[in-house]
């Protein structure tokens, strides 16, 4: 069976959940080979084996972390050149899509982004225009470069003993043009990442202030959920932009999406419409978000949210 490359997305060596999803998906398409770029491979080794990587390419040169995007595309292009895989799967994160973009140009290959499924012959399912259409598309030129959205495939272990291959890279000058001077973390601690979370609780203009987002955080924590926000809320500075859901924010597709004090504008829907179960709390019965819901509560969020949070905590015992 042909090799299918999976680019490992990791945080200081710990592979993100989407990597395990991609390895699972790659197993249904061919022989999964993981490509690990950067320092910290020791933290990733066991997990990549557990999720069925038959081979791991390791490009560990410390210099790779000093520049953005281009080095990873170069490493992948080099491996594609020597291994001739059937396809390359990359997580559909902002960084993943940019790496895929450069790789596609290097290989003169077609690129499909934001696939939610990939089947035989690398036919990709996409959900476009905010879930308004489902499309099946295919790469018709070169080695398919496909970015796959988080939460597209449930990750399943399938232990293997991967062959490890060290990749010697000599970065071109072009790959060293954008130099990272500093990395700054502004993350609010502890909660799951928005695009990977099983449950997302989002707040909107109905919250009325940044302080009131504490209500959303408490509700989210009772469910082990990630916190999202509408653009009205991020524009007002009530919550960080990284947490914005929608057309110009993140696209999420969790098991459960809860919209609190959010009207459901088309641009917000574009980022959450494919969620499996949708719940809304809004005091306006005419709010368009109610057209999407599986369950909706018409009421004041300042009454409903504390009550439901308390109920959930009580049920945990």
């Amino acid at each position, binding site marked *: 069976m042909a090799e299918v490359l999976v680019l490992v997305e990791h945080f200081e060596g710990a592979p993100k959940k989407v990597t395990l999803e991609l390895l699972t998906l790659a197993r249904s398409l061919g022989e999964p080979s993981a490509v690990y770029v950067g320092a910290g491979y020791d933290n990733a080794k066991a997990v990549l084996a557990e999720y069925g990587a038959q081979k791991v390419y390791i490009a560990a040169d410390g210099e790779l972390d000093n520049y*953005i*995007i*281009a080095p990873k595309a170069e490493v992948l292009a080099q491996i594609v050149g020597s291994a001739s895989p059937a396809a390359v799967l990359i997580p559909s994160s902002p960084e993943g*899509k*940019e790496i895929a*973009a*450069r790789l*596609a*140009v290097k290989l003169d*290959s*077609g*690129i*499909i*982004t934001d696939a939610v499924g990939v089947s035989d012959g690398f*036919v990709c399912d996409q959900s476009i225009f905010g879930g*308004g259409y*489902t*499309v*099946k598309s*295919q790469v*018709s*030129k070169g080695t398919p470069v496909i970015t796959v959205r988080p939460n597209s495939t449930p990750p399943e272990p399938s232990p293997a003993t991967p062959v490890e291959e060290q990749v010697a890279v000599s970065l071109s000058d072009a790959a060293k*043009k*954008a*130099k*990272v*001077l500093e*990395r700054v*973390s502004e*993350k609010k601690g502890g909660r799951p990442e928005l695009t990977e979370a099983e449950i997302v609780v989002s707040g909107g203009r109905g919250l009325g202030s940044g302080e009131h987002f504490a209500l959303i955080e408490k509700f989210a924590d009772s469910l082990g959920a990630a916190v999202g926000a509408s653009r009205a809320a*991020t524009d007002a500075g009530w919550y960080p*932009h*990284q947490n914005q859901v929608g*057309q110009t924010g993140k696209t999420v597709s969790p*098991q*459960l999406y809860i919209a609190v004090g959010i009207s459901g504008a*088309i641009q917000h829907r574009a980022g959450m419409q494919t969620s499996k*179960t*949708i*719940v809304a*709390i809004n005091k306006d019965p005419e709010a368009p978000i*109610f057209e*999407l*819901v599986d*369950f*909706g*509560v*018409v*009421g*004041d969020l300042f*009454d*409903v*949210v*504390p*009550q*439901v949070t308390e*109920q*959930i905590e009580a*049920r*945990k015992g």
Partner: protein
Amino acid sequence: PTAGGRPPAMNIVVCVKQVPDTYEEKKLSDADKTLDREGVEGVMNELDEYAVEEALRLKEAHGGEVTILTVGPEKAVETIRKALSMGADAAVHVVDPALHGSDALATSYALAQALGTIQHDLVILGVESTDARMSVVPAMLAERTGAAQLSFARKVEVNGSTVKIERQTDTGYDVVEAQTPAIVSVVEKINEPRYPSFKGIMAAKKKPLTTLSVADAGIDTSKVGLGGSGTSVAEFAARPPKQAGTIVKDEGDGGVKLAEFLASQKII
């Protein structure tokens, strides 16, 4: 003047795309499975307004010219006019029937070829178009031109030929630096785009607008259009409308009822 006698002025190209108005329903054409752009109102891709604004601010601070570059049908000239009325100096519009159906790979090639006809230090783009939502064209353009990639910028600082950005990340931001020529893509937190003034709208009518065919821009037609693209759509289907859900009115027990629903779904 900076060291070496080079004037500090920055010549900037802004890539602007016309997209269907997001308030309108988007449709795929049955004939060739491309986005039906004729049937809907076209507007400037929202993020490209931020790109134009950032270019104008840099010009105001450092001097230089701002040129708008669009690859797209005849109709896209409306969007070009808007960018000119915001304050850009000139525009280049690549328009040719051979371009119809170009995917990102092909579009980035056409943009790169057209860029070759315009003298510039910096190229600014939006991070994403609201119709394609691929977020790939800026990176492709950097790969094609060999210029530095400074993408997802929420802040841009220019000092002589050094460009420094704050690149938005999942957890915060990275400070990234490069020398010109550079390709910058911007997120919407970077600025607040201006509205065209009446004076701006009048002035725009007299600004130079160059129209290039594929031959003028040195574009190889085998690399663009439906034929030159690297992807094909096999089939598509409109998503069936969602079944109406349960909606309850809060009568002091809304939270309890929601918890019961979550329990019934085995979520809690």
